[in-house]
């Protein structure tokens, strides 16, 4: 790799990460608006037209708040935990193909890479829970480690079906393999398991146990303040974005869109973003509707329902593939 290529890649990284961060900021706004309207209220309205500048105001506020570090905390780990979380999520972005031929790194093991990084993200939660030296954070961290381990397996297994159909773990190839029809129709069970596991993986309702506010105050980030809290917050929403992108690519045909008339002229990335936002909207919808699972029920659901179901799905997919 020569210097020009390297600079070009760096530029791509810079642009993509920044664009994602803006999206993340506005996903928060989007959530507050969507849930607000679902709950018979308006959501942010004060900062800018219909509250459009709210994410910026929040960002500035978080940035200038006092950074409180508990005196009994394990400082190096306390510092590093939120950074691990955000870095793991942002690194996943590298393999997401935004349109045909555009991804920062066209890895042949794209899916595995994303799964690996989402496991790394769990470290940030566990470490934050441990380093805070607070019982609430600790319980949040414990819950999270158990949850992520259980649902990682289910999610990985659900994507095996997709990889079998596409014959590749490369995300670009997976999108291309869906030119005849979305994998949603061929792998409905896998899609269902993936959606649920993705919610558990990103700690979103109804699986938001690590940060269950009514039980554990704020769970693993109870002791965090200022921008360190902001990093966790960004990691959560960026994680949601990545999971939605992965779901879109694996089940909803990625960047593909209608190919006739005026639609043919629309840039492909628009379709991808539309689908991603559709998925994110689904996340919000679930959050506004469902109560929270209890810890043991969540584990039972993961181990007794999702994992066997995902395994059965792989067997069925394999058998059908052999018969064809």
């Amino acid at each position, binding site marked *: 790799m020569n210097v020009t290529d390297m600079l070009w890649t760096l530029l791509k990284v810079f642009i993509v990460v920044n664009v994602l961060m803006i999206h993340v900021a506005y996903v928060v706004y989007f959530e507050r608006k969507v849930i607000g309207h679902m709950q018979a209220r308006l959501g942010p309205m004060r900062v800018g037209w219909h509250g459009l500048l709210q994410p910026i105001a929040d960002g500035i506020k978080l940035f200038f708040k006092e950074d409180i570090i508990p005196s009994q905390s394990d400082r190096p780990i306390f510092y590093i935990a939120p950074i691990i979380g955000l870095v793991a999520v942002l690194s996943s972005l590298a393999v997401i193909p935004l349109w045909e031929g555009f991804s920062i790194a066209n890895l042949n093991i794209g899916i595995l890479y994303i799964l690996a990084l989402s496991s790394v993200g769990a470290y940030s939660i566990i470490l934050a829970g441990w380093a805070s030296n607070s019982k609430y954070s600790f319980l949040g961290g414990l819950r999270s480690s158990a949850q992520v381990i259980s649902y990682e397996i289910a999610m990985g297994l659900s994507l095996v079906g997709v990889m079998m159909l596409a014959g590749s773990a490369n995300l670009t190839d997976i999108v291309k393999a869906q030119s005849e029809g979305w994998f949603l129709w061929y792998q409905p069970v896998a899609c269902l398991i993936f959606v649920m596991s993705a919610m558990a993986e990103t700690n979103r309702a109804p699986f938001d146990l690590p940060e269950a506010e009514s039980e554990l105050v704020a769970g693993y980030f109870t002791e965090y303040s200022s921008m360190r809290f902001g990093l966790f917050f960004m990691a959560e929403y960026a994680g949601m974005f990545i999971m939605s992108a992965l779901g879109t690519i694996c089940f909803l045909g990625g960047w593909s869109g209608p190919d006739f008339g005026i639609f043919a002229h629309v840039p492909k990335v628009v379709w991808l973003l539309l689908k991603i936002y559709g998925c994110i909207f689904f996340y919000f919808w679930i959050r506004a509707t469902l*109560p929270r699972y209890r810890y043991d029920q969540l584990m039972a659901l993961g181990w007794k329902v999702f994992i066997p179901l995902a395994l059965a799905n792989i067997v069925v997919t394999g058998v059908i593939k052999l018969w064809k």
Partner: protein
Amino acid sequence: MNDFDNGRIATTDLTLNLGPQHPATHGVLRLVLDLDGETIVKCTPYVGYLHRGVEKLAEHRNFLQILPLTDRLDYISSMANNIGYCVAVEKLFGIEVPERTQFIRTLTAEMTRISNHLLWLATHALDIGAMTVFLYCFREREKILDLFEKLCGARLTVSYPRIGGLKNDVEPQWLDELYRFTDEFPMRVEQYETLIDKNRIWLKRTKGIGVISAEDAINWGMSGPVLRGSGVPYDVRKTMPYGAYDKVKWEVPTGKNGDIYDRYRVRMDEFRQSNSIIRQCIDKLPEGPIMADAPKFTLPAKDRVLSDMEHLIHHFVLITKGPQTAPEGEVYSATEVPKGELGFYFVSDGTGKPYRMRIRSPSFVHVSALPKLCEGELVADVIANIGSIDIVLGECDR
């Protein structure tokens, strides 16, 4: 302590201090939980963070002045406390309250029950994670508070009843507005039910959790929806009717299993019963005076004070010194407030001030039963249990 004991790593329980500042303890309840993993080994409630000495304060005020203190017991259903207090004092004084007042009191007490249960449902659902129910309930609760505001000027601490009557009469437009609310409200209750009642997560979180048998519930002294959830059809409004409860048709909803779900169902049914009681009260509301004819204890009407010597004297004495002719004796009177049986026990020595006022508050009893409900269950269930027994610490600590 040795880290290793017989080759195994020795473990101890984790002591978790839940509250008094915690988003789910509904005020300033403090629980000390001994945890084995996430299982509760021992749960110890500590109360008293909101103690204001209401009972002692009452000893230094005359009977007319105590009323606003009762607002602050269970501050989200202040009307019911006021009525409970007035009923007790009227029993002590032997005052006969006019029919119209009885109906209006019943009606406002049931409005309080609806608004209390709305707040309960909102926070209980929020504790279990169903966020939207919270805001839907507040939408309806707002309407009831608006009605209270139109009725007496206050939304939360109403102090609307008076000993022997009411502060002011209701207006026909107000009744119309209330009637419109009762038209719409059952549909809203159905909305809440569709959101959570058939939701599998909700059922999993509430069925079979926090079970208390009918016998235990009685032995712990529980009352209200918590007792009725265990299947005991005890309701002060039925067993010892006051107000107009014996003049309207209604039923006492009960549960069977005594778990969180049954307590939830009982309160949901009470929504409908209260709604129907309000409608019947409006339909049957008789005409007549709203203050009892007891000039030694009740404030006379303003126009008579300005035109008549005796009433002026009564007014002056009542305002400056309180009811001087309060009879000596002891009296206990209970009413059914939204949370259970609220009892007032007075010892009167004839000075116009109670020698002793004792409040039997349902929340205090229910908090004391919390360990019974929680032990052996999970941290998440503690939160659900606190929600399901519907406590307010203002009343518990007094």
